[in-house]
Every structure is written in C-alpha cells, then in structure tokens.
C-alpha cells in the first residue's frame, strides 16, 4: 500500500509503485475528471497538480508522488479556480470538453504564479495542453478575464 495526499485527504492505494498516477486516479480511485489522452505527456489532458505544480499524471509514477500533495480537477478550489470556472463559463470556452479539466489545471497554476499573465506567458503555460476542438482563443480570453484586475490608479 502506498499512501498519498489527494484533494485534502490521505488515500491508501493498492497498486504497483510504477503505476502512472493517471491510472491510479482513474482505475483505482475512479476519479474520472483527469483524462487519458496520449500516455506520453504530450497532450495535457491528464494535468494534475503536485504541490501546486502542473504535471502530466500519465508519465508520473505513483512512486514519484512521495509527500507532495496531489490536486485533481475534483479538488481544485480557491479564488483562482473560482474565477477561472466563472470566466470559462462566461466566455463559453468548452466544446467537446474532454481536454478542459487539464486546461483548467494548467491555467490555475499559471494564475497562482502569475496573476496577470501576458499572451506570451499564456502561450508558455498552456503549450502542453492540446485541444482538438480548437478552443484556444477562448481559453486565452478566459484566462485574461480570470486574471486579477490591475489595481486602480488612485
């Protein structure tokens, strides 16, 4: 048994240490918000946070998690997450939606590190998240909308 901290709780997992975190989440814990897309860390559909840092769960073995806190879309909370979901809804980003949990995970990590990202910073932070429906321009608009408003000049 391997214990990890997941979405605020300690979870014991009966899986081989080399099992990718993605398949622990989906296959063992039935948390289906984290998606399988490529298996090689190339599409970002499986993006989760380890201590707040976005990683690809499909290429992260269970044994590599260690003491780091795992956050999935099911456990994504806080002001940045709330603003992102509100912005995603307002802009109406979603098409098929399969990649969107991963997009939100990457965007949330971006906003927490860079509250007012410019386009180049968005490009960098989101480059690992593929969207075959092509929602990119709306994702960009939603991130800008969710960014902390600039302090007023007075």
């Amino acid at each position, binding site marked *: 048994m391997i214990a990890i901290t997941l979405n605020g709780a300690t979870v014991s997992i009966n*899986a081989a240490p080399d099992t990718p975190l993605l398949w622990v989440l989906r296959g063992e814990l039935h948390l289906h918000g984290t*998606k399988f897309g490529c298996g090689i860390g190339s599409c970002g559909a499986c993006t989760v946070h380890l201590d707040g840092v976005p990683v690809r769960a499909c290429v992260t073995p269970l044994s590599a998690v260690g003491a780091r806190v795992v956050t999935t879309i099911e456990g994504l909370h806080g002001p940045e997450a709330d603003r992102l979901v509100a912005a995603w809804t307002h802009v109406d980003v*979603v098409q098929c939606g399969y990649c969107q949990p991963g997009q939100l995970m990457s965007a949330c990590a971006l906003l927490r590190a860079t509250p007012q990202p410019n386009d180049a910073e*968005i490009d960098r932070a989101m480059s690992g998240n*593929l969207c075959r429906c*092509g*929602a990119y321009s709306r994702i960009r608009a939603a991130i800008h909308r969710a960014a902390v408003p600039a302090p007023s000049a007075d």
Partner: protein
Amino acid sequence: MNRRTFVIRTVAAAGALGIGWSLLPPRGRLGDRDTLPAKPGEAALNGWVRIGTDNHVTVIMSKSEMGQGIHTTLAMLLADELDADWSQVRTEMSPQRAIYNNIATVVDGLPFHPDDDGLIRRTAEWMTAKVIRDSGLMLTGGSSSTKDLWLPMRQAGASARAMLVRAAADAWQVPAADITVAKGVVQHASGRRATFGELIAAAALLPVPGDAPLKTAAQFQLIGTPMRRIENATKLAGTATFGIDVALPGMRYASVVMCPTLGGTVQSFDAGAATAMPGVLHVVQVDGYHGGTAGVAVVADTPWHAMMAVNAVKVTWNHGAMADLSSAQEIDRLAKVLDTADGHAYYSHGDVDMALQSAATRIEAEYRAPYLAHAAMEPINCTVQFANGRATVWASTQVPGLARRAAARALGISDGDVDVQVQFLGGGFGRRLVVDFVGQAAAIAKVANGAPVQVIWSREQDLRHDFYRPACVARFTAGIDDAGRLLAWRNTSAGQALLPPILRRLFDLPGIPLDKTTSEGAFDQAYEYPAARIAHETVPLPVPVGFWRAVGHSHQAFFTESFIDEVAHMARQDPVAFRLALLTKHPRHARVLQRVAALSGWGTPMEPLSDGSRTGRGVALHSSFGSVVAQVAEVRVDAAHVLHVTRVVCVIDCGFPVNPNMIRQQVEGGIVFGLSAALHGEITIEKGQVQQGNFNDYQAVRMAGTPVIEVEIIPSTEHPEGVGEPPLPPIAPAVANAIFAATNQRLRPLPLRLARIESTA
C-alpha cells in the same frame, strides 16, 4: 452511367437497407408519450420532451454531443416553442426509435449540383427522405443535425405547449385562446396561473396535436440568440461522462494490440507471460470488425494492468495484403492514373476542349493531399456487457444505430437484443461514424462471463488504426483569354471512395456505383465557368478510409481554391475580383466574399515589418453542407523561414443562425482543426504500417500557433444549414494563397511546407 441512373440506383439501394417502404404519417416524427420509457414523477408529451412534477423539462437528444453544441441548440428549439424557462431545461439521450433517424444527411448525400433544382433532384430527395424516415439510422454527422431537426424539435415544443394550455383551459373552464405561456408559467387573464409541473399529469392524458402553430421569427425568445453551452457545468467540474468514463459494478478493462500492418491478422500468439501478470483475467484473439484490423486483447481488473499485459503478449502476425503498401507509392500511383483516366464527370458544361484550344494562355497544375487521422482527444474506447443473450453498449459514437448492429453481429444476436447508451464524445470529427471498435469490444466482452468490459485503445492504436481521410491527387487545366477572362476549367481528381466499402460492410450491399464524397467540393461549387468538366476517378486501394471533418471538401477546397488563385494571378487580376466575376448569378456567395474582403482590409497594404519578415494575405471561398464560407488568412514568414498564421477573418452564411454563439465556436474550431491539417497533418504508411503514433509525431496546432480569428455571421432568414464542417475547407487554401502572396511560393501538396528560399543574409 448518367446521373439519372445513379439516382435511381441509390434510392433503390436506400430502400434495400430497410424494413419497409411505408410512409410515417405527416406528424410521424413527433412520436407519442409511449415513445419514451416512463420515469417516475415525469410524463412525456411526445417523443421529444418529458416534464416532471418538479417542473423540470427534459428535452430528448437524438444527436450525439461531440463538441458541436447540438444539445444546446436542440434544447433551444424545443424550449422556445414550449415557452419554457431556460433554467428548467435539461437534456437526455434518446432511445433508438424511427422518429430519431437522421433524414437530412442522407438527402444531402445525393450527387446534385446546388444549381440543379429540376424534377429529378426533387423526386430523388423526396423518395430518399421517405425511405430514410423509416429505414434509416440515428446518425450525427454531415453537419446535418440542426437542419434535420429544425422543424421536428419546434413542432414537438409547440405540440407540448398546446397540451399544457389545453389542460389549463379544461381545469379553469376558460377558452384556450385566452391563455398565455411565458417562461414556464401558464397564465389566464383572470390571474389564474400554473406551472408546467402542476399541469403535466392532466396534459399527458390529452391527444397529441400534430398541427400546433409554430412561432414566427419575431416571436422567438431563445432561437437566434447567442446561448451558452447547456452542459458547461459538468464539463468544467470533470463530472461529464464521456465513453471512457463509464463505470459499472464489476467492470473489467481491456487493452488491445492490433496488427501493425493494416488489415493483418493473428497467426499465433503466446499469452504465457501476459497471463502471469497481475490482474490478468483473459487473453483473447479478436478479428477485425467493419474494416478494422485483427489483434489480441487482454482483459484485466484495471486499465493499467490490461495495458501492461497486452505489451507482454507475443504475437506472430500475418501481415496480409497490405504488407508492401507505401502511401508515397500509392499517391504517385493516383497521379499516374490521371495520365490516362478521364474519371466520372460529376459536372460538365460547354465544350472544354474547344475552349482550351482557343485560350491565349493555358495553366496546368497538380495538387496532392495526404491521408489524415482524426486524433480526437478521447482515444477510441467502448464498454459492452453481454449477459443472458442481451448486450448493452456504452459508447462515444456518432451512430448508435450502426453500433447496435455491429455489436449484434459480433455477438450473434439480433439488433433488438442490443441497447446502446450514447455518452458524451471527446471529439468525433467523423471517426466515430465507424463502428469497428464496437464490434471489437462486443467480441471481447463475450469472454467476460457477463461482466461489463471497457476496451480502451492506446493513442498509438487510435492513430494507427483509424479510418483515414483518403489521399487524393487532382490535376487542373484552365484557359484564359487575352483580357484575362476565364474560358475553361478542367479538373480531374483520383482517389479512394469511402462509401462503397462502408455500405458493403454494414448492409451487405454490393456497393454504390458512385460516391459523391469523392468529388464534393470540386464539382458542386458556384463558379460560373464558361466551360468546365469536373471529374473524379475512383481508384480502389485497400487503406481503411472514412469520413474526416468536411470529407471530400477538406481537400477538394484546397485544390480548387488554390488553383483559382493561380489562374487569377496568371490573369493579372485581383483574386477577389477574379472570383466575383464568376459569381454574377450567385449573390449569396458574392456577398460572403465581399464581406470578408471588406472586413479583412483586402487590398490595403499590410503593415511593414522591420525584422525581415514577409507578409501576405490569401482568400478562399467555399460552400459545403448548405453553407457558404469565405476566409482571408494573413501570414508572416519570418527571417528564419518559419511560417506564422497570424489572423483569419471568416464570414459565414449558414442560413438562419439558430445559436450564433455555437456557430462562432464551430467557426473558430473548424479553422484550428483545418489549420492543424494544413500545416502538420500527414499520415504516412510504409510496409502497410502507419508511421505516426502519438501527438509527438502527429502534430496539431497549439495555443501559440492559433491565429486571431474574427467571425461574421451573415443575417439570414433562410432554412438553417450546416455549421460543424463548412468553416474548415477554406482555411488551407486561404493560408496557401497567403503564402504565395508573401513568398511567391505556390505550395501544391499538403501539408504546407515552405521550401527554404533565397538567403536573406
């Protein structure tokens, strides 16, 4: 064979698919309260809507939601005529019944030129609609959903509203004409009011009216407004159930490895090592279904155990008939075919040979398009439970009717013993119109002793066992006179047909003689050529091919709209003006083209760049699936010869815009999907094996490569037309034409790869 013979044969073939020729009555698509299974606390008013005593309105969805927003749009159609409040509306997938069959897409498949409005066309369309209504299939594809259900969903809403009003009138002893309905509340001038939930029990006992009046456009509350996606909340929370998210008690997981050579089979396999691995329950050989390739599957307790173990199965393959197939050689062969073949003329007008002989200048060119994979984000998967002679299929599919048939055949049971539960699709793009994976999953589930089995393909299996967009080669000859006017246009393309093998596999039909999808986008455009012959030569090849977003239009638009640009430049004319001169009798097309020129700043110089970049604009106009789309792309080729597509302006006329927000989404998405193909998309095959396996070698556009996209929707009161596919075809030629404007390089094969031109040092 002439067109008339073809139409008659097609209609006869369509009839042969079915169970009967009888026409449903005029209100046949409305259904009645028995169409839907009963639910406690709810009652159906027809086949499209149930209302609960808790006041929820459940709108029944016969189309698969794969990102195109159709659930939102269909719910809008019904809710508006019902005068429901949008907040009380939710959606639910329909069962499989004849009223849910897709009529529009089959009618659209008939090979008529858009200008042909003769008796033969109208008769063929009417006969086809009649046959398909009874014998057709539930199908989401061909950009047909809104046009298919524009009237039925509204009629269902209006009929349900009339029943609620009648129930209120009876209860209150007042004339129905004095009752109004707004935002889910039924009201009388006396002040009496009731919610739908309060009236549903009585309303459900009334006869279903088939002639309830529909709203005029001026009365619409929801229709025509930019509504947000109805399923946003679950998709953002990660709780929406895609096919791959189906979870059932006792479920097993299967992973498959198919013969790397397309069409190959299993000679033998050694499951020893795999069987000894953790969680492995069964190792089973599976045939190829519906054009798919045979392989071996491992069933295990978890998906990861299945994936690990399938790699440990040692398989000896029979590589089969495609063992020596090379896509490069096949595409060369298509070109060689055009040395001698004339093809079947889908459109012929005037004396092309004579016109070409009299031309001052003749222009010739050859264009090529490669095979393409769909690469939807959700890898192919399917869940099947087979117990007590009955099967349930949970799948992301565009064709539940065909999925049912595929499972039934694989299990040796009748169609009626299979239930298909359609889940959200993590992208479809046409891949999920093929049911190879359903037959495969059913065959695997057969060994699981009644347990549900979820089969999940790896991304590599998904890309290497797709049904690819057919490769195609086209040759053009055009003639212009001294004044630069077009005199004649000859276009012959060669490639595989995709419909005949699909019809053969699914319906045991000997195959249709012609396949419109091969030439669509070439023969059916609006240009008023003084003389033209537009033909396609079908070349049988064994590569599995299928419907890829926009189908024939996806490459034919690139060919035609690039070549017309070449001719315009050769004629020393502005590409927009040159096209407009060929559209004098097509004001709808001309208007779209003029609008995109105006919005994009066509004809004005682009801002000069000081960094050695070269810039250019390109235009393309294309009509498909009933809609007309024009795009202007702006590109920048930087000093390192790297291409950047910086801006795309798009104008679409898709008839009445039912949900402008979803239309914009589809335009934006279609442009990005088409751009991925134009810049990166290429599936190559060597020794019968697809060379690309994942997103690292089958690239797609990402955030940084996405241009600024500006969209204008032409206001229209015409019947709604297709939206999911029409925005895609113009992007490749618009970009190619922009590259020419920027660099003088005419790129004729796809994908568009810049040659390193002269040094700028």
